[in-house]
């Protein structure tokens, strides 16, 4: 692959000496109705709940509306929600929905659709990789673990309606949500006649209860009759969800199974559910462990902190003050999904002939590994926002091919970072003295770093020596992508490049070193503490201390892991090896495939390993610092410092954002001084965009609003 890239660059070397990289058609050759976009790789899913690939993100935000959506700069802007209120304690988020949003079926998009989307993602059966994005909402994580229930009957001392949890660490003995019917069930839409069923469960067939109508966040029960149950039926080749009148579910296979339960701890409990619960200032009542039976329990979305007071209002309650909740509402996890389409075909409803969408564009065709065609949605509430008729998304999974296609004019723009590293010195002007005008580089909310396994490198001085030995400024000279050298964990924009208003918000001088993370433009800013940047004298001092403390236990060699396949990782590894060699440390290099690297770093069987972290939200508390919490599966350095834990916990209830940031900064300082991680650079986004493309470009979280792009014929 290395030779492939090197040779592909031959083409670049013989390029004509224009302002732009490759063919730029004249205005009258352009078709302003179509935007052709080179994506990288084949999207895994277009279902917002199931998608986890980078390739699917911009398509999903184009197909499915959300409470807020991505602005050109990546910050959330109102979309399905026109206004919202955030409670003073940062724990209650109330969104008011517009009345003119429609699914492509013509049905209005309501708060129940948003709630259903959250309920679906929080259901373990969905197995959504995006469920962690809803973790701040009360009850979501316990629900995913299938360990919380709502009491259906009184079980002394608890009353019906109380939220209880399993009292043991053991697996639940059975699923109390299993139901059966003595006669065949006609699975249908809520309130529909039995004849309108789209699936049938045979008599005695077992289903799983997902939710019941008339709950806190579920659709109201149709007039005249009892509540309806939304059930999942999976058997052989059949996999459907749908509504049936609840009274028809007359069998409960797990009715007699015994569960040891207790009421959940208050912090994670949706308050209005606790019958007779007073104000939050009540002392914690005792929580005795009692035995309940399957018939007493139900896993229900009523245990989640999601409430729909009416069809145009939705309320989320978080278990902690969550200042970063608002930016989570444009994420995949809360991109609305249409219940009627999902029900009929839970895993295949995004096929072009089945899909129902709510976003600016609709799916017209999906040819795997080839192209995806999006067309302007006939029902979107803001038709003026979409200026093209179609977006043709080319699924290209080879960097050289993507760049070549752009060069020949097969696509008008590329997604970020599909440029082979060998092309970069050509594009950025290193080779010909001036850059191409259609090559754009900007900071990304992500940091490239080396984990240090603190369980193996237990000596703090040794770890500090490793971090202090590296001159990061040399790295972009061989990676060529304009990367921003950093010794700080939290990434951001170089302070020297900040806008004046942001500079004021950050409270730093223009000539201050390092980066700053702008959280709200001109208002709120996080300045990470300085890290352990290069200082060879200090590195040698730390090393001497380490040798003195460790004596014979001082390691003879250390091993640095990186993933094979990309030249840059290898070059960086060799550079680090040389730098550590200069202070007298013998470091060997090992290349692995990426999956093995992930497995080994998670298992903790390594010394030092290259990885990185990408943020989805401009908030270090949710995106970067959690990596260093004791026991977190993401904590690949096995770092655990009670002081860091204390500071992070102290920040949690704080309502004043500036004070909170100051506390987080203190926590980050404690962590970075312990050197469980060696930050190297802030990632950049590198994109090729033809000069006639408007309203398309990089933003720091790499979520371009594709639907806004248009072709300027001039």
């Amino acid at each position: 692959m290395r030779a492939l890239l090197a040779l592909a660059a031959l083409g670049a070397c013989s390029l004509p000496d224009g302002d732009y990289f490759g063919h730029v058609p004249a205005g009258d050759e352009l078709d302003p109705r179509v935007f052709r976009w080179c994506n990288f790789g084949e999207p895994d899913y277009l279902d917002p709940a199931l998608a986890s690939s980078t390739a699917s993100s911009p398509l999903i935000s184009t197909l499915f509306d959300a409470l807020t959506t991505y602005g050109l700069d990546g910050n959330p802007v109102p979309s399905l929600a026109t206004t919202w209120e955030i409670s003073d304690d940062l724990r209650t988020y109330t969104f008011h929905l517009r009345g003119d949003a429609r699914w492509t079926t013509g049905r209005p998009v309501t708060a129940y659709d948003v709630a259903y989307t959250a309920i679906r993602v929080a259901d373990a059966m969905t197995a959504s990789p995006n469920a962690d994005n809803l973790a701040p909402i009360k009850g979501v994580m316990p629900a995913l673990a299938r360990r919380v229930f709502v009491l259906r009957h009184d079980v002394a001392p608890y009353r019906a309606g109380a939220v209880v949890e399993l009292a043991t660490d053991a697996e639940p003995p059975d699923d109390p949500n299993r139901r059966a019917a003595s006669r065949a069930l006609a699975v249908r839409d809520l309130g529909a006649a039995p004849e309108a069923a789209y699936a049938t469960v045979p008599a005695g067939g077992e289903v799983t209860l997902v939710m019941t109508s008339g709950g806190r966040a579920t659709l109201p029960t149709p007039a005249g009759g009892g509540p309806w149950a939304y059930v999942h039926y999976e058997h052989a080749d059949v996999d459907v969800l749908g509504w049936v009148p609840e009274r028809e579910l007359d069998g409960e296979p797990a009715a007699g199974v015994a569960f040891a339960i207790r009421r959940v701890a208050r912090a994670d409990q949706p308050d209005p559910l606790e019958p007779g619960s007073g104000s939050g200032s009540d002392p914690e009542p005792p929580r005795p462990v009692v035995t309940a039976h399957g018939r007493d329990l139900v896993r229900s979305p009523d245990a989640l902190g999601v409430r729909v007071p009416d069809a145009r209002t939705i309320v989320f309650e978080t278990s902690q003050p969550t200042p970063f909740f608002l930016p989570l509402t444009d994420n995949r996890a809360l991109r609305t999904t249409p219940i009627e389409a999902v029900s009929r075909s839970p895993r295949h409803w995004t096929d072009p002939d089945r899909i129902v969408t709510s976003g600016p564009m609709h799916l017209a065709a999906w040819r795997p590994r080839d192209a995806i065609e999006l067309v302007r949605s006939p029902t979107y509430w803001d038709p003026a926002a979409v200026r093209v008729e179609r977006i043709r998304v080319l699924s290209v999974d080879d960097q050289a091919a993507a760049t070549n296609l752009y060069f020949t004019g097969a696509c008008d723009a590329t997604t970020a970072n599909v440029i082979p590293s060998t092309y970069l010195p050509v594009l950025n002007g290193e080779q010909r003295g001036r850059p191409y005008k259609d090559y754009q580089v900007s900071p990304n909310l992500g940091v490239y770093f080396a984990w240090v396994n603190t369980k193996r490198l237990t000596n703090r001085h040794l770890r500090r020596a490793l971090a202090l030995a590296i001159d990061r400024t040399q790295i972009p000279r061989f990676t060529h992508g304009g990367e921003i050298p950093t010794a700080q964990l939290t990434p951001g924009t170089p302070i020297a490049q900040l806008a004046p208003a942001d500079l004021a918000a950050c409270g730093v001088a223009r000539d201050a070193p390092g980066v700053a993370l702008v959280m709200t433009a001109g208002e709120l800013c996080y300045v990470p503490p300085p890290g352990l940047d290069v200082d060879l004298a200090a590195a040698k001092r730390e090393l001497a201390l380490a040798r003195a403390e460790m004596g014979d236990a001082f390691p003879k060699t250390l091993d640095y892991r990186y993933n094979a396949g990309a030249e840059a990782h290898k070059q960086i590894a060799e550079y680090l090896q040389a730098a550590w060699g200069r202070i007298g440390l013998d470091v060997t290099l090992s290349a692995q495939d990426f999956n093995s690297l992930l497995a080994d770093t998670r298992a903790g069987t390594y010394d030092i390993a290259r990885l990185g972290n990408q943020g989805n939200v401009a908030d270090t508390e949710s995106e970067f610092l959690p990596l260093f919490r004791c026991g977190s599966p993401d904590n690949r350095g096995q770092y655990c410092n009670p002081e860091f834990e204390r500071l992070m916990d102290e920040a949690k209830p704080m309502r004043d954002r500036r004070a909170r940031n100051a506390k987080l900064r203190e926590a980050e300082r404690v962590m970075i001084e312990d050197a469980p991680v060696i930050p190297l650079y802030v990632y950049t986004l590198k994109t090729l965009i033809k000069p006639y493309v408007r309203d398309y470009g990089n933003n720091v979280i790499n979520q371009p609003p594709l639907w806004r792009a248009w072709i300027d014929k001039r």
Partner: protein
Amino acid sequence: MIRFIVRRLLASIVVVFVVASASFLLLHAAPGGPFDTAERRSAVVQRAMEDRYGLNDSLGAQYARELAHLARGDLGRSIKRDLSVNDMIARSAPVSALVGALGLLAAIGLGLVMGVIAAWRRNSRTDYALMGLALVGISIPSFVLGPLLIAELSLRLGWLPPARVDGPAGYVLPAITLGMLYLGTIARLTRGGMIEALGQDYVRTARAKGLPERTVVWKHALRLGVQPVVTYLGPATAALISGSFVVEKIFQIPGLGAAFVDSITEHDYPVLTGVFVFYAVLLVGLNLVVDLAYGLLDPRVREGRA
């Protein structure tokens, strides 16, 4: 004959079973899993994802499920996307086969002509030039040739698209790149066969009768000279149907090879096992056809006395 075929088919089932079992065990023994990620993910979510696809069941239970699927002719479903493996193969294998067939046809056409001319003008400059070219064709790997062709014919001259098969023009560069793999071999085999054929008595007789040289070479000698090439086409065909992942990657052809390689990095067990089994069935089937052909030619094989 019938007994021979039945015996071979029974043996084939054993082969497929062994391939499926070996690939299942080796894939599950490899480090990492399908849902490993560099992104932040809680243990609870990871667990829910693995449970959904039964990855936390015992290996024995997973193996039994896999075999039950296979017994029904169902290669299973991808665990990374909404895709049945049968559909994926049905869609992508013909694409690989088409590109491969085009490449092979080009190689046969050009290779035969090169070989015949080289043999006819044996030890001349023409011969050396053509055989030199054949040697280059054999030696240049497709990951070098492909980008070179793209750089010249697509990026610089703008004659052909650099990637993707949006129309007939898209097939040209991949077919040439793939064809070069076969071209050199075919040209050299043809030259060898032709040199031998041109020395035969019947060719001397044809010349003595005063037939035009063109007729002698292309009509009389070629029939014999081409036989080594025909033998070679068997393995070449098998190779082209299974697709060349390098060429598919360079030119972004949605074929089986590229899909297969992606599944390896994604640890998509059902897809991998499915494709292994498909390849196994394909090879076993082609071998059966070859054996039957031998059997028709040679009674000793048919009777199992060879």
